[in-house]
């Protein structure tokens, strides 16, 4: 008997249908409703849940009442166990967080949620990586890498995972979007944290193909390459992201999970460094900047990161930037370039071009970095 947790953020995605960017906060929500916006998340959740109907016999579905999940489940003919309810008349971020905590406490095998980055952030803040999670995309703005590509795809991955068809999980980045910037048409995302998601790449097996290496193994290969290349005297500024973590681990260093760290002589000399600290170090000696795309949209540098500023970039120099990413990550971009958006057009322009991305041990990939999506 498997336990599936479900959280629907009923207001996620409402804004988009009426031209609003997001519905975080009661004001925006009211406006959206005034404009005739229709809740979408429930429909999308139901779409995903349809794939799970064949497992009903062996599945216990736990959720919150009404629009936070019960309604979507019932619409599919499932019989959910309701373990709580959200605020009335409108649910809040706190409700999402509470639901996540309670479902985690119930020991669910998978927590499916329908929402956007905001919802992902709320869940991440509440339970971190303690439970395997998967997002059904229903938000307007999806920067986080924790979502399936569509509701039906989410259902398919969930069904496969619960059936035991996916043997591994991996960590994926949760991005936090600056609301004010967003409403002014500026995408300013910062790495908020990580959620643990099913490693759906594992279920793909091609019979004739050479082995499909798993994501973690490839990240370790990248780490091995970086470690081999390191020189004693150099400062290494290591950006955040799942691909950089195995590198820190291989050196036996405990870096900050979300911030920028500085290494020299294989020792951690700066943890969660500020822009000022980074500038001081890079002026002291030759430096390299190790970056990996963060989130689901391929951003190498977004506005949300304050530490790696245009000044830092100018100081380090483009030729000393080492980009790392797994082949699967690059493939997921579907040919779109890696993106930079530092807030300074000149710096963005400076960073444009082709880079040798480290994709494995003794393996590079030439990939394009651009400042336009």
């Amino acid at each position, binding site marked *: 008997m498997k336990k599936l947790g479900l959280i629907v953020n009923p207001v996620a995605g409402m804004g988009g249908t009426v031209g609003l960017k997001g519905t975080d906060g009661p004001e925006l929500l009211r406006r959206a409703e005034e404009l005739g916006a229709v809740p979408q998340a429930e429909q999308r959740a139901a779409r995903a849940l349809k794939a799970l109907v064949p497992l009903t016999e062996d599945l216990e579905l736990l959720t919150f009442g009404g629009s936070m999940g019960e309604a979507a489940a019932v619409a599919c003919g499932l019989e959910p166990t309701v373990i709580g309810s959200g605020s009335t008349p409108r649910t809040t971020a706190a409700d999402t967080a509470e639901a996540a905590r309670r479902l985690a406490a119930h020991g669910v095998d998978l927590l499916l949620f329908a929402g956007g980055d905001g919802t992902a952030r709320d869940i991440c803040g509440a339970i971190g990586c303690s439970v395997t999670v998967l997002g059904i995309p229903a938000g307007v703005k999806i920067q986080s890498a924790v979502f399936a590509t569509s509701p039906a795809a989410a259902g398919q991955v969930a069904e496969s995972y619960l059936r035991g068809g996916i043997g591994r999980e991996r960590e994926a980045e949760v991005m936090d979007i600056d609301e004010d910037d967003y409403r002014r048409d500026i995408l300013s995302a910062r790495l908020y944290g990580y959620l643990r998601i099913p490693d759906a790449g594992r279920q793909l*097996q091609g*019979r004739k193909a050479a*082995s499909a*290496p798993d994501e973690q193994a490839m990240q370790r290969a990248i780490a*091995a390459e970086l470690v081999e290349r390191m020189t004693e005297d150099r400062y290494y500024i290591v950006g955040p992201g799942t691909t950089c973590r195995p590198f820190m681990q291989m050196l036996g260093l405990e870096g900050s999970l979300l911030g920028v760290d500085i290494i020299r002589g294989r020792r951690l000399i700066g943890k969660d460094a500020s822009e000022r600290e980074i500038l001081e170090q890079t002026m002291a000696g030759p430096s390299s900047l190790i970056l990996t795309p963060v989130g689901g949209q391929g951003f190498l540098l977004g506005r949300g990161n304050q530490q790696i500023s245009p000044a830092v970039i100018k100081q380090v120099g483009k030729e000393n930037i080492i980009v790392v990413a797994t082949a699967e990550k690059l493939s997921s971009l579907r040919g779109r370039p890696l993106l930079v958006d530092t807030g300074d057009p000149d710096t963005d322009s400076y960073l444009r071009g082709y880079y040798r991305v480290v994709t494995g041990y*003794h393996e590079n990939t030439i990939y394009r970095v651009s400042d336009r999506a």
Partner: protein
Amino acid sequence: MADRQRVHPYIPNSVPEVKAEMLAEIGVDDIDDLYEDIPEELRFRGKLNIPDGMTSELELERHVENVLSRNQTCGETISFLGGGCYRHYVPAICNEISGRSEFLTAYAGEPYEDHGRFQALFEYQSLMGELLEMDVVNVPTYDWGQAASTSIRMASRITGRDTILIADTISPDRLAVIRTYCEPVTSIELVGHSPTTAGLDADDIKARLTDRVAGLYLENPTYLGTVEERGRAIGDALHANGSLLVVGVDPLGLGVLAPPSRYGADIACGDIQGLGNHTYFGGALGGFIATHDDERFVMEYPSRLFGICRTERAGEWGFGDVAYGRTSFAVREQGKEFVGTAAALYGISAAVYLSLMGPAGMRELGQHIVQKSQYAMKRLSELDGVRLRFDAFHFKEFVVDFSATGRTVAEINSALLAQGIFGGHDLGGEFAALEGCALYAVTEVTTREDIDRLTDALRAYLA
């Protein structure tokens, strides 16, 4: 040029009406338009200097048979040739099964519609596993040389060391392949053999062991036909140094000879050509690699390993790839080799062969070969000036030293050929110390009469 354009039997849509219909469906006037993405400077506009097609099978078969008629076969000639390719009996059922269209023309389908192929190859792995007394055997690779190369590289990755010792009694052909595969990433050092027994010296090897030695590769029986008796001592010395023992073996003798796992081999490799496949001018080779069921070793195989598993139906069994996402990374990682098309059909023949032979057949075969080769060795050594080069137990092959006869191996073989005999091949070009020597192979296909005719012909010529 013929004035009637006939559609080739292999190209059904070449019929003009069909072509036209299909072009119309695409919305294109001429097939040449489909090549419009190829710029003119890349287009070949000449005529290939290849003969006009022999489109009738009748002409084709007649022509090729005529070409092949200038081959003299081992069926028409008494043959004592060996050295990595052997004339063993090929059971009729092996031909029957390897000729079945369902197997012959299949490739890489799923373990559903190609379940048969997966089961046949799982059985091949399993049958070889029993012969070798090891729990993991891969789907066939190209040949012994490549299997040995891969085994050596596996040893290197597993131990994290970059040097391999190789017994210098190795087949030169295989050593050449190993060099191509392993250098420059792995260093090769040759280890000498005893001039009397062709055996290795465990003490000498111990002295060569450093913390850079990943392992030692030896063949047993050796290329020269001798059987190494000190495998256990060599293996122990290697293990004490954290190195691995890699042994290359001819499976045909394993009905009577101890498999490498019995004297400490960590990796065994070899060739399956003799297990139900013809000599085919050296073109029907297939390699195998076997290890114990140790995760560290399994994760280093670059080839496919078929495993048995359940399906969703109770009582039903299926197959799949073991550890498919197989990667392992040490800090000093070496690229694993590649997966591609190799020699699967010969693996299926080998499975059929071993199924037919069973333990009794393999024992009978081993005994037969031992007796017959010992008989040949005795008869040859009775000739004046002819002696057996090594004082050791031999299986199937042995080195005959003609240097005291005053005739070169080339001269001797030329004379034998005139008598309808392929004499053992000249080792002088392969081993400096074996100038004037030849390698003779005797299998269950050789008759007593063949051996007697050989000795009679030699006696007459050398007189």
